[in-house]
């Protein structure tokens, strides 16, 4: 049944949003969605979701765990617009309002194999001190109207943000028919290939697959 001349290739993403590191905040939940270009379409699995609310354990002081599954398959004719995972983290502030604690995005890896990504999280920052104080008091922080903006490059030059945490996501990637269409994505990753983007990635590694 295999087509000798395929016109589309498939990308299968199995993974999990493992957890997050936010030194100053607790009781957080995470919303995720996939953003992709015009040539892409999801064929199975969910495109977006919300995790549970988690708090820091007694052992590890900074680490929050979600262990949230991701299982999606995409098809496309063109690697342009490669899917990105957009993650937004929310939590309660001192007065009990639900405020945003970070936005972040990363491209889905394209080499088959296992990958771990540490995504830095940032929030839009009010430009002057009075606005910071009133937004803290009223619980109405600056937010993006559509979190998918985080996955785009245009229009960012006017925003000021503060980075304040990291989310760790692990992926297992499989592709089908990319080689038949002539694409070379490089060597498959060796197992446990870590790509920590920060000097302070998680201190412990308790959840090896």
């Amino acid at each position, binding site marked *: 049944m295999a087509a000798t001349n395929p016109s589309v290739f498939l990308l299968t993403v199995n993974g999990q949003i493992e957890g997050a590191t936010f*030194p*100053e905040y607790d009781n957080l939940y995470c919303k995720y969605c996939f953003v992709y*270009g015009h040539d892409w379409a999801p064929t199975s699995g969910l495109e977006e979701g919300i995790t549970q609310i988690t708090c820091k354990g007694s052992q590890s002081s900074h680490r929050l765990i979600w262990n949230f599954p991701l299982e999606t398959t995409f098809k496309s004719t*063109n*690697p*342009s*617009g*490669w899917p*990105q995972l957009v993650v937004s983290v929310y939590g309660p502030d001192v007065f009990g309002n639900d405020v945003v604690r970070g936005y*972040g*995005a*990363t*491209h889905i*890896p*394209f*080499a088959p194999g296992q*990958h771990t990504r540490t*995504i*830095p999280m*940032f929030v839009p*920052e009010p*430009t002057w001190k009075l606005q910071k104080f009133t937004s803290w008091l009223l619980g109405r922080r600056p937010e993006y109207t559509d979190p998918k903006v*985080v*996955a*785009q*490059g*245009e229009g*960012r*030059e006017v*925003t*000021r*943000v*503060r*980075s*304040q945490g990291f989310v760790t996501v692990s992926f297992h990637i499989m592709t089908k028919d990319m080689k038949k*269409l*002539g*694409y*070379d*994505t*490089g*060597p498959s*990753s060796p197992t446990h290939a870590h*790509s920590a*983007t*920060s*000097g*302070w990635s998680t201190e412990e590694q308790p959840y090896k697959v």
Partner: protein
Amino acid sequence: MAELHIIGQIVGGSGFPQTSLFCKWGVHTGGAWRLLSGLKEGQTQVDIPQTGDMAYWSHPIDLHYATKGLQGWPKFHLQVWHQDSFGRCQLYGYGYCHVPSSPGHHRISCVTWRPLGSWQEQMAQIFVGGGPQLRSPDLVYSGADRYRLHTEAMGTVELELGIITRHFDKYGVES
């Protein structure tokens, strides 16, 4: 025609005198290359990290090139700027790096430098800010006439780039 996809992000910058940084970036190619989709230049957001020294931009890059030749392989040129609380911008560094030529995932640290003025200009820079800038930014990625410059070292910019090539083996190119 052979095709090249550059998919990744400008992660962030560290090692600069202050945080609250943004980066203006662009990709320069030779005449044989044609951009099929994606933006080849842009400006990141301004990031003020809460802790630590590294400013994170996570600026996505998704470029699709078609090419007839290997000359003029794409290169990134960057300018790192600092924005203070009043909105004034000051140059913190120029840098460039070649896009990797082998398919796969790459982490690149791009080093940056800043032109150094006379000692009077350096003294003024401590108090007032500012400082000399290049008149034409092409000097960042070309070697001609560099010998006239006196520069000082600044921080590094981290990039994570994934490269996908297509039909390179058909043309006999090994990478």
